[in-house]
């Protein structure tokens, strides 16, 4: 029997979302341990996102620190019906990173410096417990595999849309494609990712 065949991404996502929401509820009650656990679960993807957008480890760490402090302060306002805690945290991180990059008007420079190679502090085994590390690896593997399953032009459009902070028109200009084509690629790419990753979970 193939274990992968029985794997239900939607159910796994729902379970993760439930755990994250529970941690946030505990954080709202000033639960320091819950905050530490949430940090272990979220800090790597949030930092990787901020670093990918900003291409600057120090700034990325600043952003992550701001986001976690915001989570601590606003945990009580979290409503799981509006989305998962992880999506909330990623949205805060990405928005802050893009705001910063736009504010500093360094977009062109950063884009030219951006590479697909891993950057920043390489993850070490220290820190999160083995279960959290396993969760991170599993998530990273699944998402990267899903992205790799997209046609290259959709991959490029989706990655630029998520990490670059460029507008639709700027992405179209960068890719030298009509705006409509870029929009369609983004739409198809996200729908395909949702299908693969099982975005539907309540």
């Amino acid at each position: 029997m193939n274990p992968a065949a029985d794997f239900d991404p939607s159910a796994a996502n729902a379970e993760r979302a439930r755990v994250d929401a529970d941690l946030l509820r505990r954080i709202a009650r000033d639960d320091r341990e819950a905050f530490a656990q949430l940090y272990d679960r979220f800090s790597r993807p949030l930092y990787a996102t901020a670093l990918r957008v900003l291409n600057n480890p120090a700034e990325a760490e600043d952003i992550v620190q701001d986001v976690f402090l915001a989570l601590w302060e606003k945990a009580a306002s979290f409503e799981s019906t509006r989305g998962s805690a992880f999506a909330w945290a990623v949205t805060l991180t990405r928005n802050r990173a893009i705001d910063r990059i736009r504010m500093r008007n360094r977009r062109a420079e950063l884009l030219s410096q951006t590479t697909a190679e891993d950057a920043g502090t390489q993850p070490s085994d220290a820190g999160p417990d083995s279960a959290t590390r396993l969760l991170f690896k599993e998530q990273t593997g699944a998402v990267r595999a899903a992205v790799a399953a997209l046609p290259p032009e959709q991959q490029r459009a989706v990655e630029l849309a998520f990490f670059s902070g460029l507008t639709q028109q700027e992405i179209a200009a960068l890719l030298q494609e009509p705006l409509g084509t870029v929009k369609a690629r983004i739409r198809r790419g996200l729908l395909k990712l949702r299908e693969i990753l099982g975005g539907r979970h309540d």
Partner: protein
Amino acid sequence: MIDELHEELASLYVLGLLEGPELADFQAGLARDPALQTLVRELNETTCRLAYAAPAAAPSPALKARLLDRIDTAARWRAERRVVPFTVPVWLPWAAAACLAVSCAWLGQLYLVSRSENALLRDQQTLAEFELSSARNQLKAERLIAAHEVASATGQLATLEQNLRRARQEADDANLQLTSAQKLIAARDLQVAQNNERLAELEAKSAHDADLANFKISTLASLLGNSPQALAVAVWNPARQEGVLRVEKLPALAADKDYQLWLVDPQYPIPVDGGVFTVDPATGEARISFKADKPIKAVAKFAVSLERKGGVPKAEGPMVLLSQ
């Protein structure tokens, strides 16, 4: 119902790529569409998981320590803030009541103003609806007029087409008549030509008849004692200035002699030469066509003399025949 456009806008929305009116329109639609809300939530979850697609990197271990330290501080501050005693001043309820009263009065006024504005807006709406109704009626009337004009124009066009067909028919008839007339004219021209030809023939015949009428016919009697039965007839056509002479029973000629014909015209002092001739020695007959060597107006007499061979310009020999 979610279509491709919704999916596209939702995708751009979760990526923060919608701006301005497009963003406002989408948010308005999102607020009243549960299916769209579900789609946005799912796409947002999917999009946020792209964080795992970023190149692997971890913050420094010190960050966690700093954060825990910060939240410890914050937690302490919160705890301290929670235990700060707060004594409610005696005047606070009265102040709150006064504020409430002022607020109620302000809200009441605001309500009245809003009501008035609402009534005004309703009036404006009624007026706008009336104007819209009027415009629709006017449009309807204009459409009816236009339809009537179109029908009228169509009728006129049909009449014009009928007239045109009739005119073409008449033109065809006229062409037919013209062709018939041309044929008739051609036939008449032919007839005229034939008539002219006939007329010419008649004129020629008439001229010939006139010539005949003017012919001079004379009988010439013998002046010879030895041949009293010699006889000649001369016919002269004055129009053609030529004639014919027929003689009988003239004596045979010697080899050095010729008979010579003379035409007597009063305009000339001497007879005009009409040419020489010989006769059949056996019968004494001859038939000759002759012409005068001068123009002849009128022939008074014909004469034949015996002359030397070849003839002479002026009669020298004896006269043998003379018209009576």
